[in-house]
């Protein structure tokens, strides 16, 4: 299999370049990450993040043949050769396929990704009806791999101010949570030309999400909640 990988090592001072690798596939090679880990054995200077190797941790997000995805759940049989691997677009590169996620997580923290409820906690738990719980489906599954935000042109243009699809999906997850009491504050924070309204409904986020979630719908949901709140 022919793989071209973006290489950059800030310690050498050299410009980033594409390096070609050719590797024989073995019977155990099913996903792209399998091959990457064998390449790492051959060339230990190659850097990438990975952890759970089953699409749960979100570490190995990268740009695979022009599309963001998780190497661990990308089947080799679906890839056209040469397989071109680049770091997540729009993110500062630390080394090879490893990007700096500082700003991405700063946006995540900005939306207060935790339940806010100052009422006295009940003895056991805050109950929800099945309908209330249903509203969290399609939102809570996000693994923060950044495939969506790194595929969003609006996020490329204003990464410092626009929260981005991942952060907004998480924001909506807490806005619709029946147990959360800070909905008004959350909405007021998002009613901003940059934080929320940089979204142009390009929908790359929904198109590329490896977990099949739809940040576009969450963003639309926030806008509608804002309309409801102001009327």
């Amino acid at each position: 299999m022919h793989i071209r990988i973006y290489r950059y090592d800030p310690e050498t001072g050299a410009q980033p370049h594409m390096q070609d690798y050719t590797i024989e596939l073995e019977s155990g090679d099913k996903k792209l990450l399998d091959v990457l880990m064998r390449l790492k054995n051959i060339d230990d200077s190659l850097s990438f993040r990975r952890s759970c190797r089953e699409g749960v941790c979100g570490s190995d997000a990268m740009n695979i043949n022009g599309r963001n995805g998780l190497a661990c759940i990308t089947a080799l049989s679906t890839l056209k050769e040469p397989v071109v691997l680049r770091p997540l677009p729009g993110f500062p590169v630390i080394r090879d396929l490893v990007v700096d996620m500082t700003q991405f997580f700063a946006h995540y923290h900005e939306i207060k990704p935790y339940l806010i409820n100052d009422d006295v906690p009940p003895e056991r738990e805050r109950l929800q009806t099945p309908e209330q719980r249903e509203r969290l489906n399609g939102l809570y599954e996000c693994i923060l791999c950044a495939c969506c935000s790194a595929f969003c042109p609006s996020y490329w243009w204003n990464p410092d101010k626009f929260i981005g699809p991942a952060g907004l999906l998480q924001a909506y997850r807490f806005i619709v949570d029946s147990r959360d009491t800070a909905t008004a504050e959350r909405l007021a924070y998002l009613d901003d030309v940059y934080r929320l309204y940089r979204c142009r409904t390009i929908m790359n986020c929904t198109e590329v999400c490896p977990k099949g979630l739809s940040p576009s719908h969450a963003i639309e949901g926030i806008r509608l909640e804002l309309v409801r709140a102001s009327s």
Partner: protein
Amino acid sequence: MRVFVGQRAWLLQRASALALLLFLALGAALLLVGPPLTYERWHALATSLPGAVIIVLLFAALSLHGWIGARDIVLDYIHSMPARLSVLGIIAVILFAIVIRVALTMAAHLSLVT
């Protein structure tokens, strides 16, 4: 006070889009229904009070829609504040001038001003 608002602009953009759609439907109806759209018929329409009001409203909606769209593009691509304000200023003056010009022309047709 926030200079660049969020929700209000978003709502106005959608409202003006709906207004433009309505005007488009009106225009299509004019073309399809009734006698052929000759210069005389256009002139009569444009110099009637309802016609003139609709034309001014059409340009107002178009300018408003264009303003929000252009503002969005400027916010995306032009990050230096002086450059941004200059470009926004130029766009605002042009769009405003278009609406004023149309309003004055229509008023002149209706002999409201000479």
